């Protein structure tokens, strides 16, 4: 409970929560908040300026930009959160195992992880999408694989530090199984650094999904997503700047606030690092 109190007292945490909580709400319940069908085309109302009916104007097919923004958040969030959860679970377990056993198998795990890290992330994502097609499920898996190394390396180095600590030796002496030592003894002691990495990775995931959608490799049109909207708006940047402005603004705010959240969590969970702002 102490952690929660410290979080609330942390200004960065509060600021990011003020932005993130409504965003998550919109991602979850966006379908109930919209007044227009985000896919419905109106050829007479293309590229309109903001009005009472369309608070952020319309796009090149006369669709409501505000509604498309609201609906477009969901796939981005599913890809970013889903992928990061997969990465966190897989990466933590692999890292724990590799750090604890530290023999040839442990080395093998870490070298594979290093290989994945060598790929530029957007390139690997494009490869996978190119082979297996786009679609939400594939994107979740791609993000999961791409960010597994981040968690794996953090778990590995933290475990390396702890594997010879006396409370671990005590467990070995009592004949505890490797699984018990990893999950019950070591994991609670390294989990705070993993949580910090989680929020930082979510923001990378959002950016990656937006990047892919921008390139036309993400969510399939006509379903909206933010990156795809920015990509479409590129053609009208000179004549209708506000079309580009809205999705860019919200993407910025989302990334900024998730990063801030990560910073705030680091301040709270890792008191050894001095605050820096």
């Amino acid at each position, binding site marked *: 409970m102490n952690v929660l109190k410290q979080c609330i007292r942390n200004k960065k945490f509060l600021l990011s929560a003020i932005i993130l909580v409504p965003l998550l709400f919109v991602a979850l319940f966006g379908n109930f908040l919209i007044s227009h069908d985000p896919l419905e085309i109106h050829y007479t109302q293309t590229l309109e300026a903001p009005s009472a009916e369309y608070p952020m104007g319309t796009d090149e097919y006369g669709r409501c930009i505000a509604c498309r923004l609201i609906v477009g958040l969901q796939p981005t969030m599913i890809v970013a959160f889903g992928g990061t959860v997969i990465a966190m679970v897989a990466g933590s377990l692999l890292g724990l195992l590799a750090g604890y056993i530290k023999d040839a198998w442990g080395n093998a795990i870490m070298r594979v992880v290093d290989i994945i890290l060598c790929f530029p992330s957007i390139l690997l994502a494009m490869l996978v999408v190119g082979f297996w097609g786009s679609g939400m499920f594939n994107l979740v898996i791609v993000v999961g694989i791409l960010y597994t190394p981040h968690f794996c390396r953090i778990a590995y180095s933290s475990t390396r530090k702890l594997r010879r600590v*006396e409370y671990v030796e005590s467990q070995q002496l*009592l*004949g505890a199984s490797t699984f018990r030592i990893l999950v019950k003894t070591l994991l609670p*002691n390294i989990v705070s650094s993993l949580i910090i990495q989680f929020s930082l990775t979510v923001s990378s995931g959002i950016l990656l999904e937006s990047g892919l959608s921008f390139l036309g490799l993400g969510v399939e049109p006509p379903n909206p997503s933010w990156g795809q909207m920015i990509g479409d708006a590129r053609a009208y940047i000179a004549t209708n700047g506000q079309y580009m402005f809205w999705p860019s603004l919200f993407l910025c705010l989302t990334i900024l606030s998730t990063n801030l959240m990560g910073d705030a969590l680091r301040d709270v969970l890792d008191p050894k690092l001095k605050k820096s702002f």
Partner: protein
Amino acid sequence: MSEPLLEVRNLKKYFPVQHGMFSSGKGFVHAVDGVSLTVEKGETFGLVGESGCGKSSLSRVILGLVKRDSGDILYKGQDVRTLSRSERAKLRMVFQNPFASLNPKERVFDIIAEPYRIAGGFSHTQIQEEVLKLMDLVGLSRGYATRYPHEFSGGQRQRIGIARALAMNPEFIVCDEPVSALDVSIQAQILNLLRDIQKELGLTYVFISHNLGVVKYISDRIAVMYLGKIIEVSEAKDLYASPAHPYTQALLSAIPGAVEYLHIDRVLLQGDIPSPVNPPAGCRFCTRCPYAQERCATVEPEMRQVGEGHYAACHLVGKEAE
């Protein structure tokens, strides 16, 4: 009475030292280099030596936390590696650093309950009963059960560690410098606690320390280690009254006040302890020994009897000495 509980024969453990990825030379730290000892049931076997002489490595090899390279470790006449899980759990350890030996994320209750949970087959009420009994035994208030280790002082933490080591009725406990991290005022409390518990439960201890006063206080027999070898074994009283090995003499004379009270001459050693990667041939102590002769540098001394139950590894003592 004398019935050996633990027998160690010619135990060796070398740790590889790597100089770097591309260098060909590979050395070994001779941490435990041919140690033999016998611990009898119900006694406290003290193990002294300076830092880095292999005391802790020896204890970890005996308990199987570190794999041995060669030699035998027999517990009740049976190789420790072939002991069943429940038999294995009779061998325990009290750790040196009470700040590292308790999982900071677990409550005191869970720490002490862990042996029962790992063994399995205990109901929650049984575990609760046993844990509270253990907390009474080591002098911890029952109200502490729901607290975390960081809320306690070093002495109290060590009590928690001792309670954990006593769970599931152990027979043999290695105490690896259990008081060296504690304030002097607390040391006596913990030592008395260990001694009282030993009497009450009939335990056998191997007690490791670099503090000669502490070892003398608690041990029945004492072994002195130097550079991975045991160089002298004796009843505690004899060792302090008539140390045979020159190293033991030097060690004892370094106790503050020893020259006055034990009536021994001060022996000042020259130089540093040699590297355990490259220990001297012959007697390990010959590079610093004030009485060193030519054969000391080439021939390794065997253990020789110098009194009843008193053995020392030195060419200059015992029956065959001129």
